[in-house]
């Protein structure tokens, strides 16, 4: 959904190393190259990977980049961050599910209060 498609912005490439699996033990890392423009977020990159390469990659978000829904929280190069605000940069970026919560799939953890679940 990047708005910047016109002139003046240079396309670069990041390599996202993403945890794929249904728990912390049962899974593996997969790497994806993603083209980006200056200012694009990690979430922009993940959405592009889902659309063009790997539709089954599990991520979670709602507000996209307004910084209100908090759903896209993940571990980015070892730090807990919102993927919608963290910027892509050239080179390797490692993405893991947030620690201390059960992993549901890939980067999605069971973050809901028990009262909001079945």
């Amino acid at each position: 959904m990047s708005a910047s498609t016109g002139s003046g912005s240079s396309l670069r490439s990041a390599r996202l190393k993403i945890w794929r699996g249904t728990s912390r033990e049962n899974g593996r890392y997969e790497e994806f190259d993603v083209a980006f423009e200056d200012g694009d977020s990690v979430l922009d990159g993940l959405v592009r990977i889902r659309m063009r390469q790997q539709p089954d990659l599990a991520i979670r978000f709602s507000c996209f980049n307004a910084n209100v829904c908090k759903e896209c929280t993940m571990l980015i190069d070892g730090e807990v961050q919102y993927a919608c605000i963290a910027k892509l940069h050239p080179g390797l970026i490692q993405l893991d599910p947030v620690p201390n919560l059960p992993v549901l799939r890939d980067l999605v953890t069971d973050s809901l209060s028990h009262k909001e679940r079945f």
Partner: protein
Amino acid sequence: MDEVIELATDVLVAGGGGAGMFAAIAAARNGAKAILIDKNVVGRGGASIMAQMTCAAALGETEPDDPQLHLADTLAAGRGLCNEGLAALLCEGAPKRIRELETWKVNWARADNGRINQVLAPGHSRKRCVYVDFLSTGAAICAALRNKVSRNPDIRRLSNVSLTDVVTRDGEAIGAVGFDVGSAAPVVIKASAVVLAMGGMTKMFKRTTSPNNLAGEGVGIALRAGARLVDLEFLQFYPNGHLAPRMVGLDPTTWEPTRVKLGGRLLNGKGEEFLDRYGEAQGEGYSTTRDALTYAIYKEVESGRGSPHGGVYLSFQHIPESALQAALGPVIEIFKRNNIDLTRQPVEVFPIAHYQMGGVEVDTEMASCVPGLYAAGELAGGANGANRLSGNALPEALVFGERAGERAARSAALRKVPDWDMKAAGAQLELIRAVRGQNAGHGPSPGALMSEVKELMWQKVGPFRTAQALSEAQDRLCSMRERELPAAAVSGERTHNASLVEWFELRNGLVAAQALALSALNRRESRGAHQRDDFPATNVQYEKSQRLSLANGRLVSSFEGLPP
């Protein structure tokens, strides 16, 4: 075979934004047990939480005001098509809801004299809009409602539940069907009344201010249940949507409140003021309504005088840094993180899909024509006619949500739906089971189809329309709905299967998109947010509402007072 999760309640509310949360609170305080579901997270999904600034209510705190004046402004902005009963309900109900939220600890910004600070927003004749600093109005309202909802023992919240169908029997709503996103387990909720508060369909446009969950599913679900739609062709494009440079961490609607507050200048690609070329859209008073401003920006770019990314400039360079700092506070830091320095450079803006004026046809009880089925918030059509005033969306969510919840609770008490046989939901449940794993690995992904729909809607069903582009869109949408969606590949995974969620978004969202394209094709005039390049004038013969229903899978349109 998947085990079905089976629940029962008095009032089922679908959609955990402002309207849905208020509906659940109102249902509970009128004696009902309520279940409140959201595809994302209750209280965090939806559009309300993203609202930054204005919430209109004739409180008369900053200057004398009256709900009747608010109503007159709303009707004028609606270009002759507001449902006056709904508009009056919105304007008369807003002050009470704002005061109530204050008792629920929403800290409305206050002036030095201690009174609630009300500011002027475009199209309003009085200083009427309340807000929470800085740009946190929607977030503050949702936090307060979330708090009320979570402490209410009569409300059960269920997040990550995707609603797929309302279940009807003899033409009446008796509950709903969906699935748990976490496990793909089918869910049946038997209910004596159902309130749909699932927002609009702005996600179906490439450039949008929408969160990821507003795919028009409420529109599709209501149509399938037998409800009618009204004036769906009116979809508001927010004039000053952020375009470039890439900015994250702030909603793309940031610039309009900032422009109004500080007096930002809109300039074309040559650095010239241009609003004075477009009649109504004068540059000085910031009173221009959204439809007129969108028109001016679009036409300026079309004339070849756009900015490098195909928009126009919004400049604050004439404003001293200290004034920017005082007005924007912590937001300046977010701009900095995005390499935006307003003292040195303008930003580029362009209209962006923002809000659906049309929607499910309801009366002032928020009841659709299907007994037991209610709609509220953005999904309820008609209050705003052909163009919504800045600041009217939040009070609409609060007032209509409250009304829907209260009436649904009363109705539920009277028409207790008896425990029904699960066979009534058999076909809908079977669909959920059948779609998971369909064509796995063979065919387009629902996500890729969604990308195409967004591009198509943006290119052909945007604010400026022609019969040709709309017909092309219709053909493409029809093919997607009838051929490509059934052939789409959905993996067989149970746990958090995003393709399954997107498939059902498209199942209902494509019907919504078709309904919008058809409505726009039928309205052969230009009015408010609906501009036809092939019918550029407003035509008094079309000063009437268009209704749509679904009959045997086909959309049927009729204009008020005209034979179908």
